[in-house]
Structures are given as structure tokens and as C-alpha cells.
């Protein structure tokens, strides 16, 4: 019988306050500039939803952006495989959210919005 290595489980991500992450600040600035208002108080669920996704993905927000982008020839580019992985992960996670389709869509779209405002195009199509 051959010995197989058992993968070491990843330690759960330890998150700081979300607004301490550069990618979250970029997201909130983008929301503020595009839509006006205060993105944190206008939708108090926004940051908790993002935090829940980070826990699900076991990544902090900056890590997510690092895994979906790269620098090539001095230019920042989208990492296609990373984007595809997160696109699927968001779809799966959204499907597990309890509640109505609207609620599920809101949770998924909150994370998509985070990626979009960080320059990672993520078209999911209609969620209704």
C-alpha cells in the first residue's frame, strides 16, 4: 500500500477589521464615487456579507484580490484562473445562503461588487 500524504488543513483566516484592508478601502471609495452616499451606512449588511465570504473562502480581502490579479510586464492584469475560481466560489456560496432568491443575489453581488471595484470584471448575469 502506498503512503499518501494527507494535505494539511489550512488554518482559518484571521480577519482584521475589514476597512483596514486596502482592497476594501478601494471598494468603498469606488462605491462612494460611483453611486454617492456612504456605502457603509447606506447598506449596513455590506461589510458583514463580505466578511462572511472571506471566512467561507478562508482568505482575507487583499488575498482575494492578489489571487485574481497579477503584474505582468509592469501592468496589472486579471488572473483568469483565479477569477474563474472565485466566480464559481461566489455562485456556490450564494446558493447556500438561506432565504429568498433576492437575498441570495444580494450576498453574491456584494462580493462581485468588491471584485469589480478592484478592477476584476466579473459578469454574473441576472440573479433574479
Amino acid at each position, binding site marked *: 500500500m502506498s503512503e499518501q500524504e494527507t494535505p494539511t488543513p489550512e488554518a482559518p483566516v484571521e480577519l482584521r477589521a475589514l476597512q483596514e484592508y486596502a482592497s476594501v478601502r478601494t471598494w468603498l471609495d469606488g462605491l462612494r464615487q460611483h453611486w454617492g452616499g456612504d456605502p457603509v451606512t447606506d447598506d449596513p449588511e455590506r461589510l458583514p456579507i463580505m466578511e462572511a465570504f472571506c471566512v467561507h473562502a478562508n482568505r482575507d480581502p487583499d488575498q482575494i484580490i492578489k489571487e485574481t490579479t497579477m503584474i505582468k510586464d509592469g501592468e496589472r492584469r486579471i488572473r483568469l484562473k483565479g477569477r474563474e475560481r472565485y466566480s464559481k466560489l461566489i455562485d456556490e456560496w450564494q446558493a447556500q445562503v438561506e432565504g429568498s432568491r433576492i437575498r441570495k443575489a444580494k450576498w453574491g*453581488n456584494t462580493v462581485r461588487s468588491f471584485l469589480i471595484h478592484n478592477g476584476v*470584471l466579473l459578469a454574473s448575469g441576472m440573479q433574479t
Partner: protein
Amino acid sequence: MEFKEVIGRRRSIRFFDPDRPVEHEKIQKMLEAARLASCAVNAQWARAVVSFRDDLTADQLTRLKTPVAGLNVDLAPVHIHWFNDLGTVQRNEGRPLKQLVDVGALAPTHGWSHKFVDEFVYPQILKPLTESPAYAVASTFDVGIAVCQALLTGVDEGLGVGLVTLNGATLKEVFKVPADWIPLSTILVGYPSESWDGGGQRPRPPFEDLYFEGEYGKPFLRDSAVIDELTRAKMFQEPAKPHDPKRIEEIKKLAEKYGLPM
């Protein structure tokens, strides 16, 4: 609608009503307009495959979606995929030009005859052109004119239209077009679910930076009386404004309606 207003009303629509079907005859009118477009040597390179979204299989629809245009493809009930049939000139060997001679569009007054086409134009100009690297670009320019006429006819019919570029290899495979057709743009068609003016006429570079008189660098003289006339004819309309609260509110509502990220 008057011609100038059609030009003035055209917007690239990105929010279509996904549930409102488009009449078959309106699509036919768009294609009829394309067929009448001006085209060098009357070659007619433009080809189109009309695809009604709901007739596609789920797999086909998924394959057509690109990251940038996926949502638009989902929302638009009709997609008109345009191609350049590169082989048409060699297949026709100058016959469309001789048709123009026969109907008096090309006349001896300008040096045209069947013999000129057979012995000079086709073998010495057209055939070598089809073998030159410039051929695809030159012929695609003319397909663009046909596409534009289709686009404007769609606007005249009260439809929303928008051009997108999908994956060419996928288009060729899904719609089984001949190997030498070059896939070009797709017109998405539907009834707009956003306001027809889409927040206003979209920004353009200054006229003087684009058009010249006599030589490059000397802007074509722009007469304000002409601008006034075109404004009255509704070719010039209210320009889109950055961060327009009305437009932002509209997009928010559409995002909510279709479950889109913001």
C-alpha cells in the same frame, strides 16, 4: 422618425427587456437596410446569422457569453452576428461590377465596360487585392457600413440596439458558418428596459480634433447655425452628464430589478 433624429436617438443599449420579444419583421427590416448599403465594387461581403436567444440551447448561450458582454447577451432577445464573407470576390469574378455597368450605374462616361472589368479590374486589381494582407481590413470597412444601416433601422423601428464583440471562434462553431467567413460584431436587439435616451447623448471628442479642411491640422470650420439646425432636427440631444443623479437612480433600479452587482 426623421433620419437625423434616428442618428440622434441611437444609443448603445445595455439594458434590454429580456421578456419582451422582438417582432420578426423588424429584424427583417434591419437586414433589408443592410443589404442596400454602399459597398466597394458591389462585392457585398456582409453576412449575418440571426439568433433568437430563446431558441439557443443553454450550452450555446453560455458559450456565447464573454465576461464583458455576457449580461447584454442574456438580456437581449435577438442577436445578429455579422461576418465578412471573404470568398465572395473570387467566386463572383467581377460579375457584380458588370451588373452595375448593365444598369447604368457604371458607364463608359467614367471608363467602364464589361471588357474593362474582365480584362483589367478583376484580374489586375480585385483578384490580387483578395490575396493581399489589406483585403480583410478593406472589406470589413464595408461590412461596417451595412451593420450601421441595420443598427439605425433598428432605432427607427423603436428598438434598442447595441454592438458587442463576442468570441469569433465560438460564433463560427455555434452557427456553423463557412471557414473563410471572418466573425465581426454582433448587434444585440431588444426593447430597452432603460430609458431610450440612456442618460443622454454620449461624450465624443471635439469636432475640431477629428475633421480637417484642406490639410491635417486645419480644423473643418464648424458653423454654429448648422449646429442649431441639427439641434432642431433632434440630431443633437441633451448630452449625458457625469454622475447624473437621475441616471444613477435609473441604473440602481435596473440593478435591483435584474439582480446585478453595484
